[in-house]
């Protein structure tokens, strides 16, 4: 039967030329303390880009030490049927644990996991819809092990403060040309409920600052419900007419929704942009080289949290201080708001794709598991998430 499979695979390989050549799993090197050989599915939020390459490079490096192999797929933000199909396909591919980055269709996905005996954990996703509306169905479900958010989750958010700090740091570095007038952009509340909360947090910080420093007051344009909420499209051409004379935009979304319009409008050389998220190539127009003055990302190594939880469960191990129900954990954010920060960031795995630039080595990850290290604790696993800032980069 095995040889028949190979023949079939070979025949298809001929049909599709060279595409099948990369289709082979990696064998582990189980030596007794690194667990049984496990296949983990990873449902990412996009199929290409620096973050995807970086996370794959990081996980690839873990394969032999942790005796694990990974299968990848791409999920949708808001197409539940697609997510269920993709999870089913990962289960079909033999995955015993799945890491997902989306919170759409969770009930049905967890029912699939129950039927197949597969465990699920989250990465770069706060599962906020589930957390608010379906806590018992998801976080108390025995097949859901927990999630790590893309930064601080829910009410823990500090993004508004972070943005404010970046603006002030910029002004301190550029006293001759400070930012005095800003406008904001956010994602719609139905999709990103904390986007507007972050903007309000930013405004509150500015008001406090203005009260203490009237001579350096910063004006924030009143929030325009129609113009400043981006419906997953770049800011429209009239944004700059509706926010005249601004020095900077504080974008509580990826800069890719704002920067192209800045270029089109011819303001990219004069206006500054503080954004959440990082896109390939942004470093070329960052800091002293261009408009971007702040970007923020979570380290790809934060995937260690769901991965270790899954491996523990599959290997039948648990921590002595393991919480009874699944948790959503905050992750420290890498805030890049100066040329120095960018220089550091450019040497992280996020941009180099070199495993040796990662925060954690494979041995350190193995040491975090309960089955390989009886002294390992859940608190220890959570602690690593607090040390993935720009300052922590080697």
């Amino acid at each position, binding site marked *: 039967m095995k040889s028949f499979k190979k023949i079939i695979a070979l025949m298809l390989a001929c049909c599709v030329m060279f595409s099948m050549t990369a289709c082979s799993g990696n064998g582990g090197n189980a030596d007794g303390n690194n667990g049984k050989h496990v296949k983990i599915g990873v449902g990412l939020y996009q*199929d290409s880009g620096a973050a995807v390459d970086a996370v794959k490079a990081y996980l690839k490096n873990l394969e032999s030490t942790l005796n694990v192999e990974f299968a990848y797929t791409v999920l949708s933000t808001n197409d539940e049927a697609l997510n269920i199909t993709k999870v089913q396909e990962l289960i079909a591919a033999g995955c015993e644990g799945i890491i997902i980055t989306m919170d759409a269709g969770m009930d049905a996905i967890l029912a699939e996991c129950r039927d197949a005996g597969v465990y699920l954990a989250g990465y770069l996703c706060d599962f906020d819809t589930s957390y608010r509306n379906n806590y018992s169905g998801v976080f108390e479900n025995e097949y859901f092990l927990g999630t790590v958010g893309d930064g601080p989750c829910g009410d823990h958010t500090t993004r508004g403060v972070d943005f404010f700090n970046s603006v002030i740091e910029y002004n301190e570095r550029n006293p001759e040309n400070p930012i005095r007038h800003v406008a904001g952009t956010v994602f719609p509340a139905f999709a990103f409920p904390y986007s507007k909360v972050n903007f309000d947090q930013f405004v509150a910080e500015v008001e406090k600052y203005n009260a203490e420093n009237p001579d350096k007051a910063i004006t924030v344009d009143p929030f325009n419900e129609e113009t400043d909420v981006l419906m997953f499209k770049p800011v*429209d051409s009239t944004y*700059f007419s509706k926010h005249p004379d601004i020095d900077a935009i504080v974008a509580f979304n990826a800069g890719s929704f704002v920067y192209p319009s800045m270029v089109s409008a*011819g303001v990219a050389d004069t206006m500054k942009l503080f954004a959440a998220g990082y896109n*390939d*190539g942004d470093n070329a127009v960052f800091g002293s080289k261009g408009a971007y003055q702040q970007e923020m990302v979570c380290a790809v190594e934060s995937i260690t949290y769901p991965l270790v939880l899954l491996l523990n469960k599959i290997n039948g191990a648990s921590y002595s201080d393991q919480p009874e129900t699944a948790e959503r954990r905050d992750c420290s954010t890498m805030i890049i708001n100066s040329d120095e920060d960018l220089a550091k960031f450019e040497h992280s795995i996020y941009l180099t794709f070199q495993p040796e630039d990662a925060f954690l080595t494979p041995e350190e990850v193995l040491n975090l598991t309960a089955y390989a290290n009886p002294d390992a604790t859940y608190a220890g696993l959570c602690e690593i998430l607090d040390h993935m800032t720009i300052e922590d980069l080697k």
Partner: protein
Amino acid sequence: MKLLKKIFLTLLFPILMFLAMWIITANNPACYVNGKYIFLGFDLIRFVILNACQSICVALAIWMQLKNGRFDFSNGAAMILTAIIAGNIGLRTGSPWITMLVAVLVGIVLCAFTAAVYMLGRLPVVIATIGVTLLYESLTYLIFGGGGISTFYQNNTLSFFGHMPGVLIPTALAMAIFLFYYNYTVTGRKGKILANNQAAGVNIGIWEEANVSQTAMFTGAIVGLAATIYVSQNAVAPQASLSTAGIMFSYIVPVYMGMLLGMASNDVIGIMVAAIGMGIFNYGLNCMNLGGGGWQQIIMGLFVMGFYTFSAQLDNIKKVFRRLFKKEAAA
């Protein structure tokens, strides 16, 4: 007098559109910021020119095939793949001119390949071009590390063809290629015959395969020019699941409108004024905060429906007017 009438009729659509949007926006409070009216101004001109140039190039590529009786689904995918290849090469060479040259060459190669699949496979054109679209989209994940091209438009020197006045160069070239093809080449004239009656054209000795491949090369050149503008204005991400057809569809309105408006003069001019008119329409919607979200889609749908209905019923409308005028004359 006849010429003046033609010019008037040709320019009627964008003029009417401008006047309509002017009146509507002037009465909309959203179009006033700190008491200043924002619809009229340099931003309107810049927006309309930048958008119209992109629309004209894509629309010409679609129209060139459509005019020859073929609806090519793969134009969008060819444009995106060309933009990624040319953009990455342009990024390495640092020259917008090399980018445009590479884009034109790659566009020609891709469209020639599409034509080859269609001719050698002898497939219905929709099926052949859907297959090729899927193939080109899949290639966007396999070349240059699957990263698309995100930094090209950020560079002012490289993105010369994405801004004024550079954007006018590829647009003018695309229009010139289109006009040259249809008015000064045998291929273009034979293409018209094949479009009118394919069987009769083949029976009088037109070598259809040669015509298809030559037309594809001209289309490819225009696709390359469209890709040059596209990569100079946008970050280009890899695409899948026929999403490039959606990109192409977003430029299709000027094609059909251009067909109608071009009746007064020439289809290239028709497409140009249609693109300008649509640019004014979109800018007006943006001013009124209707440029995004659900309402924009619904308004666009109603507009498309209304326009098509008008064009489809034009003969009947003319008849009604003629009858009215006759009655008046008789009275």
